[in-house]
């Protein structure tokens, strides 16, 4: 028999067999579709979000959040008012400040309303998110909370139970052994191959398949869950029989109390569900609360404007390019005839060249005019920079630059939509991406701009907006819950009080960094992207360029960082438990925390003051709770 056939057969048997077992497991554990019980209006004790899970075959859909919102209104924690005929004009009014006894996901929905409300009021269509990552995170946490509640009630369980997962992991090792056998068989025939190939094949296959086996695959029914689901599906049949119910607006919770919430959970409230949305919002029609009231602002995002977002240098260069090309066309439009015919243009007979020359001439004049116009507008643009203050409506990446094959593209320009309260329409500004770190939707900002090119030159946050208010205190608990739900939670940590979080902003002030580097530095910003180390950037006041990055690491990460960086550094005696400098880097270690300072950009080379900065940071490591960050200064 062909030895290659044996190799292939073993691999197919191993991996194919495992995939087949996985498929069978999926088939056998698929959530049930209970038959609806007798149609009737009786409500049970389960909350609407859990009912939504049961009615949607053990899947949490966006109905859960909407039903919870309606339920909060039905239970009078909120009030929904509709001022006109259009249900989309419904507003949400907070009624009970900080009510007790709410479930985690109900609290999450209520917190969202509370964070967005201005004067206790928020339009129902303004509850959508403006940041996709935030929306996904919020929905994920809510989903985990609903699933946890359903499991507590005994109505739901993990689709792949421990027995299924264990069996699949065992099969993964069998599959790994078969693949290793194939690799060993191949290695016997190929003396050049590494002897460790079977082991690598076994390890890679086993781990990959075992990892897939342990992956969260959703929820499934329990016997109690099936009974309860059947009862609720009976209510769904009942509500479906009432055609008017589907057309009820959200404000009708005043009359229908919790029925509307359960209707939304069961998917029978067409109008209410159309109006309510707790997902991503519309970037072109955004609610603004600037000035104290709520207004809807239409936002335009230019894509094909040749001047949009360009720097002064680029604008002038392009203008000169147009002017130069126009001038060349006007002055030298008859040269091609001369080159091609070898005749003096004055003496050459009339022909097709006449038309081309005329067209070239007209084009040249047009380009001259356009280039001149652009140059004048550019100069006016440079001379008429303006400062506007308003609310950030939307921030979104627009253009990015490639950084080579192995690196992801780097954002260059962001759209920044700001409502300054003067009109219900606006055009987004083009903001250099580094400035994006400083602002979030809902913040009140002062922006220095060039109106014609729509470029943002500088940005200052005047008041932090709703984003800060939405930082929920429940998020740590929710993340632990997600880990438990997905089956990825580690051992439970002892219930000890956490030490206050140490960041660059609690260790150094802008004044101190400014003094040390001799550069005006603004209040530090935490990095917007998650990083293994707590990272804070100190940036220049004028161009917002990073000059110093402060990284803080604790625990195992801190130990590793210390060991890696202290090996080749120069010791700086007398600072905390130890301190080193190495080129533009310096680090200090105190009570298990490692602080790493790195000079960047204009800050590079200004190393002489690094030890002083280390001393300041080490001094605050003992009492990090007090924020050290101040305003921008030299």
């Amino acid at each position, binding site marked *: 028999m062909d030895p290659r056939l044996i190799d292939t057969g073993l691999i197919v048997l191993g991996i194919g067999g495992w995939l087949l077992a996985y498929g069978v497991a999926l088939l056998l554990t698929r959530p049930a579709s209970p038959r609806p019980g007798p149609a009737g209006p009786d409500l049970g004790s389960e909350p609407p979000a859990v009912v939504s899970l049961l009615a949607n075959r053990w899947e949490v859909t966006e109905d859960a959040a909407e039903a919870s919102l309606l339920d909060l209104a039905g239970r009078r924690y909120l009030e929904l008012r*509709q001022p006109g005929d259009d249900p989309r004009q419904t507003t949400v009014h907070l009624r009970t400040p900080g009510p007790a006894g709410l479930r985690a996901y109900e609290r999450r929905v209520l917190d969202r309303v509370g964070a967005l409300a201005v004067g206790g009021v928020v339009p129902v269509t303004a509850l959508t998110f403006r940041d996709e990552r935030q929306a996904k995170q919020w929905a994920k946490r809510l989903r985990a909370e609903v699933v946890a509640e359903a499991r507590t009630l005994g109505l739901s369980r993990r689709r792949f139970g421990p027995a299924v997962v264990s069996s699949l992991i065992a099969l993964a090792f069998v599959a790994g052994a078969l693949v290793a056998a194939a690799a060993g068989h191949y290695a016997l025939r190929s003396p050049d191959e590494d002897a460790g190939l079977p082991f690598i094949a076994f390890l890679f296959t086993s781990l990959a398949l075992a990892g897939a086996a342990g992956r969260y695959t959703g929820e499934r029914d329990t016997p109690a869950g099936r009974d309860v689901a059947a009862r609720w599906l009976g209510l769904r049949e009942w509500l479906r029989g*009432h*055609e*008017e119910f589907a057309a009820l607006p959200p404000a009708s919770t005043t*009359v229908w*109390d919790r029925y509307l919430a359960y209707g939304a959970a069961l998917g029978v409230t067409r109008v209410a569900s159309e109006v309510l949305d707790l997902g991503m919002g519309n970037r072109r029609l955004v609610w603004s609360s600037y000035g104290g009231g709520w207004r809807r602002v239409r936002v335009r995002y230019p894509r094909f404007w040749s001047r949009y977002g360009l720097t002064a240098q680029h604008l002038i260069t392009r203008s000169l390019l147009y002017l130069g090309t126009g001038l060349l066309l006007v002055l030298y439009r008859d040269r091609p005839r001369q080159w091609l015919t070898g005749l003096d243009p004055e003496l050459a007979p009339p022909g097709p060249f006449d038309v081309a020359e005329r067209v070239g001439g007209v084009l040249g004049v047009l380009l001259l005019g356009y280039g001149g116009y652009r140059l004048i507008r550019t100069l006016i643009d440079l001379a008429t920079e303006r400062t506007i203050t308003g609310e950030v409506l939307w921030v979104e990446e627009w253009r990015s630059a490639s950084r080579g094959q192995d690196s992801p593209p780097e954002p260059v320009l962001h759209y920044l939509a700001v409502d300054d309260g003067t009109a219900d329409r606006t055009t987004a500004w083009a903001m250099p991406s580094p400035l994006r770190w400083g602002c979030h939707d809902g913040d009140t900002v002062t922006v220095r701009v060039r109106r014609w090119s729509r470029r943002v030159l500088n940005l200052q946050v005047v008041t932090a907006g709703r984003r800060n208010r939405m930082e929920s205190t429940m998020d740590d608990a929710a993340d632990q819950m997600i880990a438990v739900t997905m089956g990825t939670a580690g051992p439970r940590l002892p219930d000890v009080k956490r030490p206050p979080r140490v960041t660059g902003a609690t260790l150094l002030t802008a004044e101190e960094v400014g003094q040390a580097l001799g550069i005006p530095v603004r209040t530090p910003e935490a990095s917007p992207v998650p990083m293994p180390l707590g990272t804070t950037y100190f940036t220049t006041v004028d161009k917002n360029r990073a000059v110093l990055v402060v990284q803080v690491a604790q625990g195992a990460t801190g130990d590793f960082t210390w060991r890696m960086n202290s090996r080749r550094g120069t010791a700086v005696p007398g600072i905390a438990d130890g301190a080193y400098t190495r080129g533009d880097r310096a680090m200090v270690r105190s009570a298990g925390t490692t602080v790493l300072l790195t000079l960047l950009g204009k800050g590079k080379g200004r190393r002489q003051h690094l030890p002083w900065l280390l001393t300041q940071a080490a001094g605050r490591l003992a009492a990090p709770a007090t924020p050290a960050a101040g305003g921008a200064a030299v």
Partner: protein
Amino acid sequence: MDNFGLLVTLGAVALVLILLIGWAISTYNRLVRQRNQVKASWAQIDVQLKRRYDLIPNLVETVKGYAAHERGTLDAVVAARGAAMAAAGGGASGVADRAEAEHLLTQALGRLFALAEAYPDLKASHNFAALQSELANTEDKIAYARQFYNSAVQTLTNSIQSFPSSLIAGMGGFRPPDYYEVAGGERGPVQVRF
């Protein structure tokens, strides 16, 4: 050519007729479905009202144990219950008469509960508290059942009175049912803020 024209005309007429018959059947079935929904919703009201009738004798007996001399109020409740049951079982009465009888019973019960305020021992009685809670729960269910009934009535009435479904409703003998309207209301006035 003539035959072909005739065939086309006949085909078109047949198609129109089929569509018309299909629409008529669909409309009739829809009306039947809506009428059944009205009946089912009424049945829900009926269930809750009967539950209330069953609770009242116990309530009267409990009150008698603490306030036997309040005979007038107790007799009024018993009489109102009897009248409501007669209206329910008589068959001749319509929804309006039934609603009126239930309204009188609700008022009589209201007076009975007001009476309890003057008798601390009665108010402290577990049996009385349980019955009061049960009755309040039943009143809530009656209120919701009434909303569902009126919603179903509205849907059927709209279908009966709207053109062209009114043609089928007329031929099928469908009549708009009465709304269940309560003069005082089992529940307090609803504060709808628009």
